[in-house]
């Protein structure tokens, strides 16, 4: 029997690599667990915090009162208005919103990539493929799409949670355009975070703990900027900024990941 192969051109190679990675990502139990978490968490947050309706805690020594404000609008789970963003104040609505997803993504990317190295799959792959860039590009694409799915599920969970909690859906100053732009900006921001996590994971290889720790640490550096870059009342500038950021980070850190793969031993 004669065995026929696809042509060894970049496009064909990338196509086969993407086919494998998409198949792996979307048949991986972890992806569905993370997707489930992304869907359930906003429902839990919105329903539970509206039941609290503002919590007051008093310090017994000083008598100082601290009030934790709950959610009073469904869209707060998606973003904060530009005027309400303050870097120094981190309240519940600022911390427990869709931006958490960028940390969940770190877990997904770290485990997805380190699994390649732990199982020995990367050895089989790199023995027959001299171009490590195929691997890096494919991983960037697949993890980006996985991130988009997680964002959409979080969005759907937030809408459902808001409806269950009886919270208003009034977009206020942001308007529906602002919400759409906000979501678009957040989509492109996934392309900023994925290359960071990929570079860390490729460097950590089979050490999942190191890859996760490194990803969290690197992600933490950019995390405070997420709410500023993607406020609820985002406009086209925010979208363009995030898009350009995604392209630059993808290309730059993708090249770094490729360099790490090329310059370091794989076992």
């Amino acid at each position, binding site marked *: 029997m004669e*065995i026929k*192969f696809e042509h*060894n051109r970049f496009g064909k190679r990338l196509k086969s690599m993407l086919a*494998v990675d998409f198949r792996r990502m979307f*048949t991986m139990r972890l992806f569905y667990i993370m997707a489930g978490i992304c869907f359930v968490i906003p429902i839990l947050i919105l329903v539970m915090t509206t039941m609290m309706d503002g919590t007051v805690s008093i310090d017994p020594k000083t008598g100082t009162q601290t009030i934790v404000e709950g959610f009073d609008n469904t869209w707060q789970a998606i973003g904060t208005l530009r005027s309400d963003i303050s870097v120094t104040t981190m309240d519940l609505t600022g911390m427990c919103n869709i931006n958490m997803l960028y940390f969940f993504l770190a877990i997904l990317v770290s485990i997805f990539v380190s699994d390649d190295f732990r*199982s020995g*799959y990367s050895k089989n792959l790199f*023995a*027959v493929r001299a171009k490590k860039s195929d691997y890096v590009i494919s991983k960037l694409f697949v993890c980006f799409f996985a991130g988009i799915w997680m964002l959409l599920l979080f969005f759907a969970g937030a809408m459902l949670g808001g409806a269950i909690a009886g919270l208003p859906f009034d977009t206020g100053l942001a308007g529906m355009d602002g919400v759409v732009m906000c979501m678009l900006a957040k989509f492109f921001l996934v392309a900023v975070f994925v290359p960071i996590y990929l570079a860390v994971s490729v460097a950590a290889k089979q050490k999942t703990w190191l890859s996760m720790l490194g990803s969290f640490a690197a992600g933490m550096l950019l995390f405070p900027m997420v709410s500023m870059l993607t406020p609820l009342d985002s406009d086209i500038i925010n979208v363009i900024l995030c898009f350009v950021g995604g392209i630059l980070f993808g290309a730059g850190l993708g090249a770094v990941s490729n360099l790490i793969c090329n310059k370091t031993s794989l076992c």
Partner: protein
Amino acid sequence: MNAIEIRNLTKNFGDKQALVGLNMTVPVGSIYGLIGENGSGKSTTEKIICGLIHPFGGSIRLFDKDYTDIDVRAKIGILIEAPGCFANYSVWNNLMLQAVNLGIKSAEQEIVRVLKMVRMEGAASNKYKNCSLGMKQRIGIAMALLGDPALLVLDEPINGLDADGMRIMREVLVNITGGGRCSVVISSHILGELEKIATHYGIVRGGKMLKEMTAGELEHGCRTYVALWTKEKDRAKALLSCKYSQVEEEEDNTLRVFDAKESEEIVTYLYENGILVSEIKTDKISLEEYYIDLMKEKESR
């Protein structure tokens, strides 16, 4: 044309020199047995050939092209340490991933072919994590055989295989190398098994190629001896030592006479001196013994 041609290969891990100017030539269509003690540099050499480790210096050519050439690399099949399968995937799905990676057009047919070769047709739907160690090794071989590679690099593939598994492995390797279609580099500590299939050998020690030879040269180089058993072993040994220069006593009470031409000559000589021989045979030293002798010889220098 050689399948592999390595010249002056060097590699360091920190301060430790893993390879010190290693040379190696693997002819096309050969089964090349790479032998050496633990830490001698066998696995490092194999990993470098597969592009998994970067060498410090030296040149590696595969089928007359640089080893980084994209077309040459697509012709390699490997089994190094683990088979490279995902635990939660079935055997079929694991093979499918590699087939797609290789760009094989009729992947299903190809998977059926390789599973048949390693006699694993019935286990295609089993989850990889539920397979036994021997089955996993066979899956690893199947994975390496996908796409009918021109070069197979196998690191300790016989480990964990039962007698049937070893026989299957022998059959597979002999079949695929038939007609010079495929060349195999195989490292193993089970020298008895290696001796049954290898056509060429390379003995590595301290990161250097100590000796390269064909199976024919090994056959020629392995000394013949007469092994005999008698109840009066000590007296027989003393008598034989007077007539022959090299008489050795083995742990199983066998006496080995290395420079005897005929076994009849020994039987007659001992009988004339009142010693009865209960069993006698002419044999050759095995690859394992040859290897141990060679190592001892190098150590004594």
